[in-house]
């Protein structure tokens, strides 16, 4: 009993340490967003009269909310599509070893090339398809590098599911696809949720493709946030406010996806 309690205490301490390391920069950003310009450079000043200009400008006077929405739309679509398409392919790679090892690596090919050498061609392609500055254009471009990663991500999870599960289901009269859809898929829910978050993150953070392929009203958040880094210095206060504004909805969303991720287990398992 003693030992278990001690272990639980150690676990809690370690989690809190990680929490502090992660949260400390947010705390600093929050402080920075409230400091007057000349105090941002004084780390030893904790008490000052807060300035709300940065928040006012970011929330009411900039188009940041629009760019935030753009990023959510693009990232959400990319996450959904890549998990749907990726789980089909991942299952095939995992169970049938489709195309063998070369095929698995071939889908990663574009992953290994720097975006710099691909982006001009993609730009010209989108131009001729009239997809520049549209959601479709940037979503398709993101899928081209996120989909293979999400597929790889999922292969590991399908590998973990025992084959007996679907064999049993097929004995019970399911077709292979039904066995995949109704038996295997529910078992990788945790993996699929994590893959969705991952796909979303890659799209949400992408700067280079978004810079070249979007513009005006379809601009995404990373391009807008980078805009605080100007020829005349870094607008740290506004940028800090913008980052906090952007993180909150995503953190809340990930809270619920996480819940789903954990609860997905236990219930609903037929075999």
């Amino acid at each position: 009993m003693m030992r278990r309690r001690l272990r639980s205490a150690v676990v809690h301490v370690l989690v809190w340490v990680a929490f502090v390391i992660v949260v400390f920069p947010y705390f600093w950003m929050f402080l920075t967003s409230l400091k007057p310009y000349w105090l941002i450079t004084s780390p030893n000043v904790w008490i000052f009269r807060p300035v709300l200009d940065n928040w006012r400008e970011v929330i009411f006077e900039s188009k940041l909310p629009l760019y935030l929405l753009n990023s959510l739309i693009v990232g959400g679509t990319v996450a959904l599509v890549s998990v749907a398409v990726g789980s089909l392919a991942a299952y095939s790679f995992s169970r049938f070893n489709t195309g063998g090892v070369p095929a698995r690596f071939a889908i990663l090919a574009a992953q290994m090339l720097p975006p710099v050498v691909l982006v001009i061609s993609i730009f010209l392609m989108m131009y001729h398809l009239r997809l520049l500055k549209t959601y479709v254009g940037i979503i398709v471009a993101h899928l081209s590098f996120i989909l293979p990663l999400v597929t790889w991500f999922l292969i590991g999870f399908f590998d973990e599911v025992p084959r007996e599960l679907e064999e049993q289901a097929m004995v019970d009269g399911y077709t292979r696809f039904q066995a995949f859809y109704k038996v295997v898929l529910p078992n990788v829910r945790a993996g699929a949720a994590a893959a969705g978050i991952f796909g979303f993150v890659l799209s949400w953070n992408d700067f280079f493709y978004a810079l070249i392929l979007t513009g005006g009203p379809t601009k995404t958040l990373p391009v807008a946030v980078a805009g605080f880094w100007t020829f005349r210095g870094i607008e740290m206060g506004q940028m800090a406010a913008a980052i906090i504004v952007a993180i909150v909805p995503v953190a809340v969303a990930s809270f619920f996806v996480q819940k789903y991720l954990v609860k997905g287990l236990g219930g609903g398992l037929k075999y």
Partner: protein
Amino acid sequence: MGRRAIVPLKYKMVIPLVLLLLAVLIYPMGSSLLVSFQDYRLTALRERHFVGFDNYLRIPRDARFWNAMSNTLIFVSSAVFLEFVFGFGLALLLHRRVRMRNFFRSVLLTPMFITPVAVGLIFRFMLNSEFGIIPYLLRSLGIEVDFFATSPLALFSIVFIDVWQWTPFMMLLLLAGLESLPREPFEAARVDGASAWFTFRKVTFPLMRPVIVVAVIIRMLDAFKVFEYLYVITRGGPGNSTESIMYYIYRVGFRFFRMGEAAAMSYVLALIILLLVFLEFQLLRMARST
């Protein structure tokens, strides 16, 4: 039924993926491969012409390329290693019953949601030797560090930033892996009275292996692209000590307009990465079969 059966299910399931990749990537990849055999400068497009393997033959003698390559390899191996260790540790911790577990999980994921340019700028401030908060706190403990001023440390400061931002990814993937593990083996181990360490070594780790392979490979692929942090903080300095391969290729191709050379370097880089990923994949697979 007859006609539909012509394409087996295993191919049908990869068709959407393959079609999408072909549609988007065949043209860019093909044209960049062509460009890599040309004297192709963006400011002199009318004078472009084929030069055979010239762009490729230049690479072995390009000291900057290999310097950037070795910086990148040091960066990738140390960052991915640390992220794996910390990420696995956190995943194991949060797999247990911890008060406010869901809250911690989602907060610990958040560093991933900040665009790397911004993360770079934030740490450029926080680590600034003169008015950054971290050197300030360290100084009050009697430690004097200048994170970006000297050669090996600057690169490791970049590693540190990467670890802050991407350990959550490892945690996310490995935690999901832990959640998906079958229960029976663990119950069996408990019935047998196995110690926690024994269970971890003999049950958890082997069962997790497929997910671990994937986690390390995906993270490695992404770490090879390190660009934003040094673009924002050091620009590759002091000297050449933090120049990464992506940054070098970007500069040759986009800043200095020499797309032909940049494309050739990209294909050499792709080959190197492919080789590394393949070796790693085989190694981890071999470990599985023994």
